C-alpha cells in the first residue's frame, strides 16, 4: 500500500509507488464501466475538492472517482468561501481539518501551495495541479495509457510538444517517464522550452526530429491565459511552424499514440485530423484519469500514513 501521506508530485515518488498506482488503477477501471463492481470501499471517507483555478475535467474526474468508491465528496467553492475574504491557505486548511476532512484535493495557481497545505493539515493532500510545477494525476493517467498500449516503458521514444515552459503536465511526465526508463524529448518554440533541458531531457525546436520514430506524442495546449507576453508571433505562425498535422505524423512510428491532456485547441497544437485519427487515445485518457484517481484515493485512504 502507498506508504505516504500526500501525493504532491512525481518528482519525489519512487518507481515502485508509480507502478503500484498503475496496477491498482487497472482494477479500478473495470468499475467505471460496470456499476455493479462499484463496492463502497471508501464509505464514510470525507473528501473535499479545493480548486483555486478553473477546471472541468480534473475536478469532475476526482469527484466521480471518489463517488465510485462510495466516499462523500464536497466541493469548496473558492469564490463563495472565506478565501474571497482573504483567508490564508493555511487557515483554510486547518479549518477543513477540524471538520473531519480526510482527503483534500487542491488545484492552485501557485507552485508549492499543496506542499504548504500538506505541512499544515492532518488530512491527505492530493495535488491537482500547482502553478507551472506538477500535475501528478495527469501524468499518472498518461503513464497508465502508455503502458496499456506499449506494455513497458524501457527505451520508448516519447515526444512532448507544445507549451512546455508553462506546463505542469510536461514536468510531471518528465519526472515519471524518466523514472520508468522512457526517452523523453520536449519540443516547441525556443521561447516556450524554458530551461527544461536542465532536468536532463532532450529539448528541440525541430518538431520533425522530435516526431521521427516516436512511439508516443503528447500534444500540449498553448496556455494563452498563462502567457503574460506572447512568446511567439501568433496562432497562425505557431500552427505553421509547430502544429502537428498528418504530414508530420508520417515520420512517427506506425503505431504511434497521440495523446493530449485537453482541452485541445483544435487546429493549433494538433490538427483536427490528428485529434480524430485512429492513433489518437485522447478520449481514452479521460477514462483512465478516473481510474488513476480512484487508485490514488483508495491507496491513500486505506494505506497512507496519516499525520
Amino acid at each position, binding site marked *: 500500500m502507498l506508504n505516504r501521506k500526500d501525493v504532491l508530485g512525481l*518528482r519525489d515518488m519512487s518507481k515502485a509507488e508509480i507502478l503500484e498506482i498503475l496496477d491498482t488503477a487497472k482494477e479500478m477501471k473495470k468499475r467505471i464501466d460496470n456499476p455493479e463492481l462499484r463496492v463502497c470501499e471508501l464509505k464514510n471517507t470525507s473528501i473535499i475538492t479545493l480548486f483555486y483555478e478553473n477546471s472541468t475535467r480534473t475536478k469532475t474526474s476526482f469527484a466521480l472517482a471518489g463517488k465510485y468508491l462510495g466516499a462523500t465528496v464536497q466541493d469548496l467553492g473558492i469564490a463563495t468561501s472565506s478565501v474571497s475574504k482573504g483567508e*490564508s*491557505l*493555511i487557515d483554510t486548511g486547518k479549518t477543513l481539518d477540524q471538520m473531519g476532512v480526510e482527503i483534500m484535493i487542491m488545484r*492552485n495557481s*501557485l*507552485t*508549492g*501551495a499543496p*506542499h*504548504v497545505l500538506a505541512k499544515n493539515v492532518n488530512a491527505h493532500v492530493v495535488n491537482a495541479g*500547482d*502553478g*507551472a*510545477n*506538477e500535475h501528478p494525476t495527469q501524468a499518472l493517467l498518461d503513464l497508465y495509457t502508455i503502458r496499456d498500449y506499449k506494455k513497458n516503458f524501457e527505451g520508448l521514444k516519447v515526444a512532448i510538444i507544445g507549451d512546455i515552459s508553462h506546463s*505542469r503536465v510536461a*514536468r510531471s511526465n518528465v519526472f515519471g517517464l524518466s523514472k520508468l526508463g522512457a526517452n523523453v524529448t520536449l519540443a516547441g518554440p525556443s521561447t516556450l522550452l*524554458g*530551461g*527544461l533541458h*536542465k*532536468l536532463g531531457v532532450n529539448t528541440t525546436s525541430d518538431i520533425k526530429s522530435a516526431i521521427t520514430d516516436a512511439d508516443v506524442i503528447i500534444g500540449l495546449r498553448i496556455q494563452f491565459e498563462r502567457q*503574460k507576453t506572447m512568446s511567439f508571433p501568433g496562432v497562425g505562425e505557431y500552427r505553421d511552424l509547430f502544429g502537428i498535422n498528418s504530414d508530420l505524423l508520417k515520420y512517427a512510428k506506425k503505431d504511434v499514440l497521440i495523446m493530449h491532456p485537453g482541452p485541445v485547441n483544435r487546429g493549433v497544437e494538433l490538427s483536427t485530423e490528428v485529434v480524430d485519427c485512429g492513433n489518437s487515445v485522447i478520449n481514452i485518457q479521460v477514462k483512465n484519469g478516473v481510474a488513476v484517481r480512484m487508485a490514488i484515493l483508495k491507496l491513500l485512504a486505506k494505506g497512507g500514513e496519516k499525520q
Partner: protein
Amino acid sequence: MKILIKNGRLVNPATKINDIMDILIEDDKIIEIRKGITAETDKTINAEGKIVTPGFIDVHVHLRDPGFEYKETIKTGSMAAVMGGFTTICCMPNTEPVIDSEIMVEYIKLRAKREAFCNVLPIGAITKGQNGEELANIGKMINAGACGISEDGKSVLNAAMLKTAMNYSKMFNIPVMSHCEDKSLVAGGVMNAGSQSQLLGLKGISNDSEDVIVARDIILAKSTGAKLHLCHVSTKGAIDLIRDAQARGQQVSAEICPHHFTLSDMNVVDYDANTKMNPPLRSSDDVMALREALKDDTVGIIATDHAPHGVDEKNCEYDKAAFGIVGLETAFALGNTVLVEGSWLTIDKLIEKMTINPAKLLGIDKGSIEVGKIADIAIIDQNCEYEIDAKAFKSKGKNTPFDGYKVKGKVLYTLVGGKIKVEEGNLNDN
C-alpha cells in the same frame, strides 16, 4: 567613566594593527592604546583570547519604521545590530511614508535618538515616493543628516532620471546606492533561474536581470562622475562588470551580503520561504565568483540587507511570501565561518570590509580604533562554536535560512560611544 579593555588582540585594519593591545576609554572616546596599560578604571574587560575590532558598520539595513513597525522598529533593529557587533547602521528609505524629505530624515534621527542602541544613519530616496518620476529633496535630506541616496527595493528604471540624480548627487559627495534589477526581466520570478528552479517548478530570476542594470549604472556613473555603490551584488556577471570598470580606472564600490557568499540556490528546498530574497540565492558558480571578488578586493564591503518580516509573510506559499531575510545577528559569524575559516579572507580583511571600508564609502569618521576617536568597539570570541537560534534574535524578524546553522565566532561585547550595549553576549538594555 573609564573602561579598560585588557589583553585583547586589536584587529584594526585602518591602521594595519593586529597585535595584543590594551585600550583605555574615557567617556565616549578612546584615550590610550598600548600594551600593559594600568589605570584607575570604573570597569575592566578582560579580552584575553578575544579579538577587539572597530564596531561594524552596515550600509544596508531595513528598519521598517515608519509604516511597518510589526516587522521591525528602530529600537529592535538596533538591538539586533549591537548583538551582531554593529555600531552604525544605515537604514533604507523604502518605508511608509518613504524617506524622501528632510522631515522624514529628521523623524528617523529623532526616533534613533530616543530609542536606538547604536548610530542610525538614514539613506534618502532618489525619487519622491520612490516612484521614479521626480527627484526627492536630495540636498535638504543630506543637510538634515542623510548619508546617501538609494531607491533600494527597486531600480530607478528611467535611465535619464537616474542620470539626473547621479549628476545632482555629485554636489554633496554622497554615494548613490544602486539596487540593480530590471523588473521586465524578473517577470514574476521568485528564486534563481537554474536547475533547482526547474526542479521545484518555481519561476526563475535570471542573472541578466541584475547584470544589465549593473552595466547601465556603471556607464551612467562614468558619464556623470557620481559616486556609485552597487547594493547586494549577487552574480558573476556583475562582478565581471565591476572588475572591468575598475581596471579601466573607474571608482565603483559594491557590497556583498553574507547569505549570498554562504548559500546557493541548492539550499532552496521544501518551498521554505526563508530562502526567498532579492536578489535570490544564486548558483554555486556565482557564489564562488563572489568569494573571489571579496578575496581580490573587487568588492570592499560586506552588508547584510537585513530585511525583517512578520511570521505570516514567510509561512505561506513561496510565490506569495515576502522577499528578504534578517542578517544583523548572523553577519560576522557567517563571514568568519565561511570566509576566514574557509581561507578566502584573513580576519583583518573581513574586519576591513565591515568597518573602515563602509566608513570611507559614507565619508564618516568611524571604523577605526585610534586615540581620540569615538569608542565604537566590538569584542569577539573568534573560536566560539554554536548553533544559530532564530528564536533568540533581538530582531522582530526571525526570518532566516540559518536557524540551526553551525557557526564559529560570537560577539561578546559591543560598545557604542563608550557605552556597553552588549556584555558577555547579552543585551544591556537598561
